[in-house]
C-alpha cells in the first residue's frame, strides 16, 4: 500500500513537501531536538542546585542556563509541540480535508521555525543570553552584556512562524470542513486548536513589536523602556505579559484537546458536556487576554489594577474547572481500558488540576505578594506545563502513533514510562512548592543551606523523570522502524481520522469518509 511515508524516500521529497502529515513529522523531529536542548539545561540547573554553594557552574553560566531553558522550552518546544506536530497531522484528517488551506505556507512556517531556531542556536554557541525568558527591562536593554538581540530575533522569527500556522488553521477550520461536519460535530481537539490559533494570531504580533522595541533600544541607546533614558520599564512588562499570559493558554489548550479525544475513546462512550467543553475553550482564549497584570502584583502598578487583574484571573479559571468536571463525568458508565494514552490522560487531569489550583493561590493578592518570584511559581507552571501539557503531548503521541506510523509501540513499556514519568514528576516539583513558601527566590544560583534537603529531593526526582522521558524516546524511535504493524483503527476509535488507512495515503482519503451523526458516537 502506498502511503504518505513510503510514497517517496528522497530527502528532497521531505524538505520540499507540502503534505501536512510530512510537515508534522518534520516538526516532530525538530521539536524533540529542542526539548532535549532545553532538558540538558534543566539537568544542569538541577545538578547545580544540589548544593547551596556555587560549584558546578559560575553564576554567569547559571543565568544563561535558565534563560536558555525557558526560551527553548517555551518558544521552540511547548508552543509548537501539540499544534504543529499533532495539529498539523490531524486537523485536515479530522475534518475530512486533503490538506491545510495553504500547504506551501505551512512549509514556510516550518522553515521559519528552523531559521528562528538557528538564530537561537547561534546565540547559544556564541555565549548565551542571561536575561531570563522574560527579558525584563532595563536589564535586558541597558545592562546585560550577552546576546540579547540575536535571541530576540530568533524568537521574533519563530513568532512569525506561529502566526502563519495559526492563520492556516483558522482558514482551514472555517473553510475546508467536509460537507455535513458542522461546528458542533467537530472533535473537541479542533475546537482547542481553533482557540489556540486565535491567540497565536492576535497575541504574537504584540510580542513581535515588543521584541523589535527591545532590539531598537539596545542598538540606538534611546530609552523606550529604560527610565534613565526617558522610558518606562513597566510598559515593557505590560506588553510582554499581554502576550505571554495568552501564550500560556497556547501552551495548555491543545493539551486539553488531546485529553478530550483520549478520554472518550478509552471510556468507549461519547464525551460528557460536549458544548460546555467546546465553549470553555473559546472562553479561555478570550478571557486569557484580560489577566496579564497578575504577573505584576508587586511591580508597582496601581492597586486598582491589582484588584482587577486578581478577580479576572479567578474568572479565567472557571472554564478550566468546567472542563475538569466534564472529563470526570465522562468516565461514568464508560467502559474503561487503562492503556498508555489513558494513563497519560489521567496524569494530565491530576497534575493540571494541581497546577491550576496553585494558580488560584497565586491569583490571591495577599498570597502572591509573598510567593511571587519564588519556587512556588516555578512549581505552579511546571505542574501545568510539564505535568499537564507535556504529558498530554506524550499521551497524544502514543494515541495517534499507530495513525502516524502504522506501527504499534510496546504497550508494556509505554505503561512503565507513563507511571515513571508521573512519579518522577511529582518528586521533582512537589518540593518546590515548599521551597517557594519558605521563601526561596527563583533564579538563585546559590541559596541558604536550610533549603538544601528539598533541593536534593527535587534533583533526585529529575533522575526518575529523565528515565520517564528517555524510555518513550527509545521505544518510539525503535517502533518507527521495527514496531509491529497495526490495523487501521487499533483503538476502535471514532473520528474521521480513523476512517482512512494507517498511515494515511498522501491525499488522506481514498473514498470520501462518512460524517457521523454526532462527535464521539461510540
Amino acid at each position: 500500500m502506498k502511503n504518505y511515508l513510503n510514497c517517496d524516500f528522497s530527502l528532497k521529497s521531505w524538505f520540499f513537501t507540502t503534505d501536512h502529515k510530512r510537515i508534522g513529522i518534520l516538526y516532530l523531529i525538530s521539536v524533540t531536538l529542542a526539548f532535549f536542548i532545553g532538558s540538558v539545561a534543566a539537568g544542569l540547573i538541577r545538578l547545580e542546585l544540589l548544593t547551596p554553594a556555587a560549584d558546578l557552574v559560575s553564576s554567569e553560566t547559571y543565568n544563561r542556563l535558565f534563560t536558555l531553558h525557558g526560551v527553548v522550552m517555551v518558544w521552540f518546544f511547548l508552543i509548537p509541540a501539540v499544534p504543529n506536530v499533532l495539529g498539523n497531522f490531524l486537523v485536515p484528517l479530522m475534518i475530512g480535508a486533503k490538506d491545510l488551506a495553504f500547504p506551501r505556507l505551512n512549509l514556510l512556517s516550518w522553515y521559519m521555525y528552523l531559521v528562528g531556531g538557528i538564530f537561537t542556536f547561534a546565540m547559544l554557541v556564541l555565549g548565551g543570553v542571561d536575561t531570563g525568558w522574560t527579558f525584563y527591562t532595563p536589564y535586558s536593554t541597558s545592562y546585560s552584556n550577552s546576546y540579547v538581540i540575536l535571541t530576540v530575533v530568533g524568537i521574533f522569527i519563530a513568532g512569525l512562524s506561529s502566526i502563519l500556522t495559526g492563520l492556516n488553521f483558522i482558514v482551514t477550520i472555517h473553510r475546508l470542513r467536509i460537507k455535513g461536519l458542522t461546528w458542533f460535530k467537530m472533535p473537541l481537539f479542533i475546537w482547542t486548536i481553533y482557540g489556540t490559533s486565535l491567540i497565536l494570531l492576535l497575541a504574537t504580533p504584540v510580542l513581535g513589536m515588543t521584541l523589535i522595541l527591545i532590539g531598537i533600544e539596545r542598538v540606538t541607546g534611546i530609552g523606550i523602556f529604560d527610565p534613565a533614558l526617558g522610558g518606562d520599564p513597566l510598559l515593557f512588562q505590560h506588553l510582554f505579559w499581554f502576550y505571554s499570559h495568552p501564550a500560556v493558554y497556547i501552551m495548555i489548550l491543545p493539551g486539553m484537546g488531546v485529553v478530550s479525544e483520549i478520554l472518550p475513546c478509552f471510556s468507549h462512550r461519547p464525551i460528557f458536556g460536549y458544548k460546555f467543553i467546546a465553549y470553555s475553550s473559546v472562553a479561555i482564549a478570550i478571557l486569557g487576554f484580560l489577566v496579564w497584570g497578575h504577573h505584576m502584583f508587586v511591580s508597582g502598578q496601581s492597586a486598582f489594577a491589582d484588584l482587577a487583574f486578581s478577580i479576572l484571573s479567578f474568572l479565567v479559571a472557571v472554564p478550566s474547572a468546567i472542563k475538569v468536571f466534564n472529563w470526570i463525568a465522562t468516565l461514568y458508565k464508560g467502559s474503561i481500558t487503562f492503556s498508555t494514552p489513558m494513563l497519560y490522560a489521567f496524569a494530565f487531569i491530576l497534575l493540571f488540576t494541581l497546577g491550576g489550583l496553585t494558580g488560584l493561590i497565586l491569583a490571591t493578592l495577599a498570597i502572591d505578594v509573598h510567593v511571587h518570584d519564588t519556587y512556588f511559581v516555578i512549581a505552579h507552571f511546571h505542574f501545568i506545563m510539564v505535568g499537564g501539557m507535556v504529558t498530554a503531548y506524550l499521551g497524544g503521541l502514543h494515541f495517534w502513533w499507530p495513525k502516524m506510523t502504522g506501527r504499534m509501540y510496546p504497550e508494556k513499556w509505554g505503561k512503565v514510562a507513563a507511571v515513571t514519568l508521573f512519579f518522577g514528576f511529582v518528586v521533582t516539583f512537589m518540593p518546590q512548592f515548599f521551597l517557594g513558601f519558605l521563601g526561596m527566590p527563583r533564579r538563585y544560583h546559590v541559596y541558604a543551606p536550610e533549603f538544601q534537603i528539598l533541593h536534593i529531593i527535587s534533583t533526585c526526582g529529575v533522575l526518575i523523570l529523565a528515565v520517564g522521558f528517555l524510555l518513550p524516546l527509545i521505544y518510539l524511535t525503535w517502533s518507527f522502524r521495527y514496531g509491529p504493524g497495526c490495523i487501521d483503527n487499533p483503538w476502535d476509535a471514532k473520528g474521521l481520522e480513523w476512517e482512512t488507512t494507517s498511515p494515511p495515503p498522501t491525499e488522506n482519503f481514498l473514498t470520501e469518509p462518512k460524517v457521523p451523526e454526532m462527535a464521539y458516537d461510540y
Partner: protein
Amino acid sequence: MTTKKIDVIGMWVFLASEVCLFLGIFIAFMIYQHFNQEAFHEATLNMSFWSGTINTFILLTSSLTVALSLAFYKAKKIALSLGSLSISIFLGVIFLGIKGEEYVHHFIELTSVHTKPGIKLFYLLYFIMTGVHAFHMIIGIMVLIFVATRVYRRHYDFNDPTGLEVAGLYWHFVDVIWVFLYPLLYLGNLK
C-alpha cells in the same frame, strides 16, 4: 469551497494579525504621549505638515487606482487595469521618496545631542511606526509589481481575479494604517 474564498479569507485573517501588530505600537505611542505631552506636542510642531498631507493624499489616490485596476480587469480592459496598477506602484514609490527625504531631517534630530529626551523619544517612536509602515509599503510595492506581471499575462480569471483582489486588500490595509498614523504624528499643530 473555491480557492478564491480561501485566499481572500486568509488575507483577512492575516490582516487581523497585522492590526494587532500596529495596535501594540500605537498604544505604546499614546502612553508616552500621555506622559510627555509637552515634548510630544513640541515635536509634532516640527513635523512637516505638507509632507504628511501630500503623502496621505498620494496613498489614498493609490488605493483608488488599485480598486480601479480590479474593476478594469474584470471588464477585461487589460491596458487600463495595468495602467492604474502602474500608477499605484508609482505613487507608492513617490510616497517612499518623500518619506525618505523627511527621514534625513528627522534622523539628524534623533541623533543630535541637543534634542531633549522627550523629543528624542517621539522621534524614535516615529521612526519605528513609520519604519514598520514603510516596510509594509515596500512589501506591498513588490506584491503589486508581481501582480502586474500576471495581469499583463492575463493570468487571472476575468470573473474572479483572486490574486489581484488579495493584493488590493493588502494595499488598502497599508493605506488605512497610514490614515491613522497621519493625525497622530503630523496634526499636533492643529490642536
